[in-house]
């Protein structure tokens, strides 16, 4: 019967899909169909890692789970830096790093609930809560860049070249110029809110103040379309493509420092945390090798370095008043 042919095809598809679930989708393992780097799947060495890895100081997987969940921010991922660092880390250590890039608010919440193994975030004042409650341990300075205030070329609020970001926001408020905020509890968003607070102004609810609730890239798109002002990290701005017309109007204010720290989620508080893995990645981020790669990482379009490596320095040394801002 002709119908049997179609039925056989359907059954074959059914078996194939069930087979793929059984083989490819097991918890923690990877799709068999995808090309995989040679190191994942088996630990690189039973006890000591390759001589090069050991010399570079990158710890190698010994025992325990090979999957590490890194909670980080969309701006870190959008800068492209992790595309360079992560494969290097995975190659040296044999770990499989799952990079979950969300807003800082969510990344920190994941840390507070033990839903991640290690955090790479840039919201120092909010990180304090995790350190104080011991949800996160071993906080270390990794790198920094800065925030900038972008705006349209014609600059209706007249803030171009101002050295105080707080005064610039005051002028945006007074002229009622379009301002696009992240509005997503991210590090960028928290910084922006702290600047408004310092200006003793509350833009919430004003018609010219809009909250995107999205990542930096998406927010820049909106600001670009609206010809509005916005606060952005320099890395995401530099990564924007042709067609982005907003210009850098305010930069250099010490308040605009964007400081990245790495913290391990406390394995004593959360039993499912991959303690060895989290520590391995954190150690990697402050290692000589990673720090050098960070310093050499440039934006493809402008050729300018996007981050300043800071491992080993104190927070005060780079310009912050306290380790938490």
């Amino acid at each position, binding site marked *: 019967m002709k119908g049997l042919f179609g039925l056989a095809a359907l059954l074959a598809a059914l078996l194939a899909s069930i087979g793929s679930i059984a083989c490819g989708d097991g918890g923690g393992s990877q799709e068999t169909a995808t090309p995989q780097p040679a190191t994942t799947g088996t630990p690189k060495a039973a006890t000591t890692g390759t001589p090069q890895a050991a010399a570079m100081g990158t710890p190698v997987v010994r025992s325990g789970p090979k999957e590490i969940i890194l909670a980080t921010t969309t701006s870190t991922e959008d800068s492209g830096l992790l595309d360079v660092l992560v494969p290097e880390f995975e190659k040296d250590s044999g770990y499989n790093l799952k990079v979950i890039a969300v807003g800082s608010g969510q990344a920190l919440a994941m840390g507070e*609930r033990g839903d991640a193994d290690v955090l790479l975030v840039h919201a120092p004042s909010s990180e304090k809560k995790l350190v104080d409650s011991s949800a996160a341990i071993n906080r270390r300075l990794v790198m920094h860049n800065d925030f900038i205030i972008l705006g349209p070329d014609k600059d209706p609020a007249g803030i171009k070249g101002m050295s105080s970001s707080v005064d610039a926001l005051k002028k945006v408020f007074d002229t009622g110029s379009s301002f696009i905020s992240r509005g997503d509890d991210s590090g960028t968003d928290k910084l922006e809110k702290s600047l408004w607070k310092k200006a003793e102004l509350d833009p919430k609810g004003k018609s010219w103040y809009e909250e995107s609730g999205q990542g930096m890239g998406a927010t820049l*798109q909106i600001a670009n379309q609206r010809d509005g002002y916005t606060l952005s990290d320099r890395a995401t701005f530099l990564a924007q*493509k042709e067609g982005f017309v907003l210009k850098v109007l305010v930069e250099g204010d010490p308040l605009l420092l964007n400081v990245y720290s790495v913290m391990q989620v406390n394995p004593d508080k959360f039993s499912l945390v991959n303690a060895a893995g989290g520590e391995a990645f954190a150690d990697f981020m402050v290692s000589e090798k990673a720090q050098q790669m960070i310093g050499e990482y440039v934006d493809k379009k402008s050729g300018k370095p996007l981050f300043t490596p800071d491992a080993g320095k104190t927070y005060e040394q780079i310009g912050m008043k306290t380790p938490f801002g």
Partner: protein
Amino acid sequence: MDLLWDGLGEAIRIIRTGDYAIWEITLRSLLISGSAVVISLIIGIAVGAAIAFNDFRGRNLVFSLVNTGMGLPPVVVGLLVAIFLWRSGPLGHLRLIYTPAAMVVAQTIIATPIVTGFTAAALRQLDPRWRTQIYALGASRLQMLWIVLWETKLPLMAAVMAGFGGAISEIGASQMVGGNLAGDTRVLTTAVMLEVSRGNFAPAIALSIILLALIFVVSLVLTTVQQQERR
């Protein structure tokens, strides 16, 4: 407009060069959504037949629930599944979060009410006397089910298409339980979202075109099978 032409050109280039891991992502989208539809078909036929053939108190309530399930927002399903699968959740120890398996779970939950609803509606239309006749001829329950399904092939295919459409096009749940990890859980929909957020509109449109093409090819295959028995 030029954005769309750029996107089309980019789509051809991506397919030729294999950029953006396009084959890996497309295959993964197909496998995950395909698996979800197959599982939801099994559940959907079982539940759909049960509520279509048996009269019981509260039957209308069950039908209402199934129809409500058809309109279930995928992102809500994603959030609920994530809450269960997070390390901090009751099933955290299974370590399923941010894996393709978790995405299959979420997409199955999304597709099952759709398939169940369509199946139940199709089976309800059958004359109960016809089924009695089949029993009278000595068929077992399973044989009866098989014959009935064969007769309702056409609306069943519609159920499969609807379920597949729901699964392959959803993004919220896939993003939340999968994490859009390159080489691991990235599918066509989440890849589109990522490229848009990075301002890479041409690749985003290209990936969208490829996704539409995939859906078209699948529906072409299913429709061909569906129409085969037409005499």
